[in-house]
């Protein structure tokens, strides 16, 4: 079934974007803009592969990826939260560092293979026509991404902690005045974002294409950043954005294989164009609502004493 096959490919292509963007969504909701997603992802990829290579276990690899992403995020937090350094510049520098460091770490693993992450198999259920493999035949990362989105939605809108996080992101001065530890909350958010980016990076060499090559994230961190903006910082719409981007990416390849005769460069730019056009369309319908960005996004906060 070609439709089933396309949907499976779309899910695989969208999952790393979704996981990384979900983490960054929480970071930005807390009022911090970490542009270093690409750097954290590629570190997650290198360390994730190394972990899986030595242990032979996907889970150990994923944990290594998470640890690497978190460690990178900690460096970012130490500078931007601890020393009140500009977030945009620090995030970009973090990417340079991550690309270099992952290359050094990963150099030894180039040309090595590992067993890819296993896919779920439940007899009968997975064998159902059309939906079987889509719902019950994925690797663990896909289910984690779904749980992540559900969890984030529940956290943001149904818990007190989520309310506090949003308050910190919308007005850090007021949140501080109310006695909330702004910097500590932001630290947690940034570390969570790093963990997600690390996991998303690890997905690439553990499940998507089970080998490591320097720079294999190939700009997915940037797409994840854009998708957070696309979502207006709302988790459900993030899923829509990630799957829109993934779907257009896959469909343009299928269209090429059908030999439609459209320049491949135009086909390759479709995912980017589609995201822009859809964003404009949905922004337009709620033009009166104004920007949904957390009001304190990217601003430095130093508590008064």
């Amino acid at each position, binding site marked *: 079934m070609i439709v089933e096959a396309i949907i499976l490919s779309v899910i695989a292509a969208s999952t790393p974007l979704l996981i990384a963007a979900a983490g960054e969504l929480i970071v930005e909701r807390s009022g911090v803009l970490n542009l270093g997603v690409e750097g954290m992802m590629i570190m997650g990829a290198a360390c994730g592969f190394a972990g899986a290579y030595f242990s032979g276990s996907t889970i150990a690899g994923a944990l290594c990826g998470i640890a690497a992403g978190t460690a990178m995020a900690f*460096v970012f937090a130490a*500078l931007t939260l*601890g*020393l*009140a*350094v*500009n977030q*945009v*510049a*620090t995030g*970009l*520098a*973090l990417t*340079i*560092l*991550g*690309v*270099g*460091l*992952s*290359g*050094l770490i990963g*150099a030894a693993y180039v040309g090595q293979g590992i067993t890819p992450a296993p896919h779920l198999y439940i007899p009968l259920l997975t064998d159902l026509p059309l939906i079987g493999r889509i719902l019950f035949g994925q690797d663990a990362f896909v289910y984690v991404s779904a749980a992540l989105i559900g969890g984030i939605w529940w956290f943001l809108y149904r818990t007190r902690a989520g309310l506090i996080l949003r308050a910190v992101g919308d007005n850090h001065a007021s949140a501080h005045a109310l006695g909330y530890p702004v910097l500590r909350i932001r630290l947690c958010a940034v570390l969570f974002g790093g963990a997600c980016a690390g996991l998303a990076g690890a997905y690439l060499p553990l499940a998507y294409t089970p080998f490591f090559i*320097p720079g294999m994230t190939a700009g997915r961190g*940037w797409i994840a*950043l*854009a998708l957070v*903006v*696309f979502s207006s910082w709302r988790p459900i719409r993030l899923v829509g954005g990630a799957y829109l981007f993934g779907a257009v990416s896959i469909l343009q390849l299928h269209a090429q294989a059908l030999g439609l005769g459209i*320049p491949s*460069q*135009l086909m*390759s*730019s479709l995912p*980017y*164009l589609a*995201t*822009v056009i859809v*964003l*404009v369309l949905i*922004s*337009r319908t*709620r*033009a009166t*609502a*104004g*920007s949904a*960005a957390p009001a304190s996004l990217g601003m430095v906060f*130093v*508590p*008064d*004493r």
Partner: protein
Amino acid sequence: MPLVLERRQERSAAIAVISPLLAIALTFATMAVVFAAIGKNPLYALYVYFVEPLTDGYTLSELVVKATPLVMIGVGLALCYIANVWNIGAEGQFTIGAVAGSWIAVATNGTNAGHWVLPAMLAAGTVAGALYAMIPAICKVRFGASEILTSLMLVYVADFFMDYLVRGPWRDPHGMNFPTTADFDPVATVPTLFDGSRVHAGSIAALIVVMLAAVILGRTIKGFEIRLVGAAPRAARFAGFNANQLVVFTFAISGALAGLAGIIEVAGPIGHLQPGISPGYGFTAIIVAFLGRLNPVGVLIAGLFLALTFIGGESAQIALKVPLDLTKVIQGILLFYVLACDSLIVYRVRFIAPQPRAATGSA
């Protein structure tokens, strides 16, 4: 937390001088450890990285060549960011500027066209860069679509568009069907300033841009408006400044400068249009803008400094035989130090007396 930050009453002039020195000292210390660990002479490494490029006329000239587009783009981005307008897509505006200017160069190639060609190319590049930047600006003011996403996504679109042109309609007919336009004619080439070096007139243009921007920002109503809208949007509204107009204005300026940098780069050091005309200038310029504290003169210094880290990194690969990735790590760490030390100009770090519990628990 034993360490806390405290805003200084005034920016510290003394620290402003000490800060870069501290950053350099920290970098030296880190590099010394790294290079000693991999068995290289740390002092020689430091020399290769930071001194040698400055002692050699050739590398010095290349420093200027590399810094030119970074500074030009960085100045435009600084204006944006001061006004809280987030143009992340300078890379795309750079590419479109290069494409638009190249269109004239390709069309006049081999036709004995006069000296109007280069000025027309520069104008076309500048205008096209500004127009391409209008897309995110208009999406923002008209539809409320975030410029972060739109400007970033349009980078990829610009890249594919250029790729299409150089592989299709604009391909050099005598180039064995490789993806490049024909070499530009002399009238379509930015002149170099000295024989035997690639320093070109664009570097002077970049200097002029820096000066103009400094004057506009510091001495004109428009500059005041930019700063006010960025710092206090509500107050700016009461003062009658239109935030939407400013989004369009800053995008137009930054797009125009990126486009100009693009066509200068193509008509100067490269000499024809081909894929890969930019080693990420538009993104590196974002760091340059912030490293220069969003100040045009600061951007100039930051651009030269970043160029030094690139060229020093190359020298290190050759002289020390260290991998490129190591030079990237050093570049990243160096940026961290510079940014952190810069922060000390505005803030002071204070040690809070440790709690008794913490004092006993020495690890």
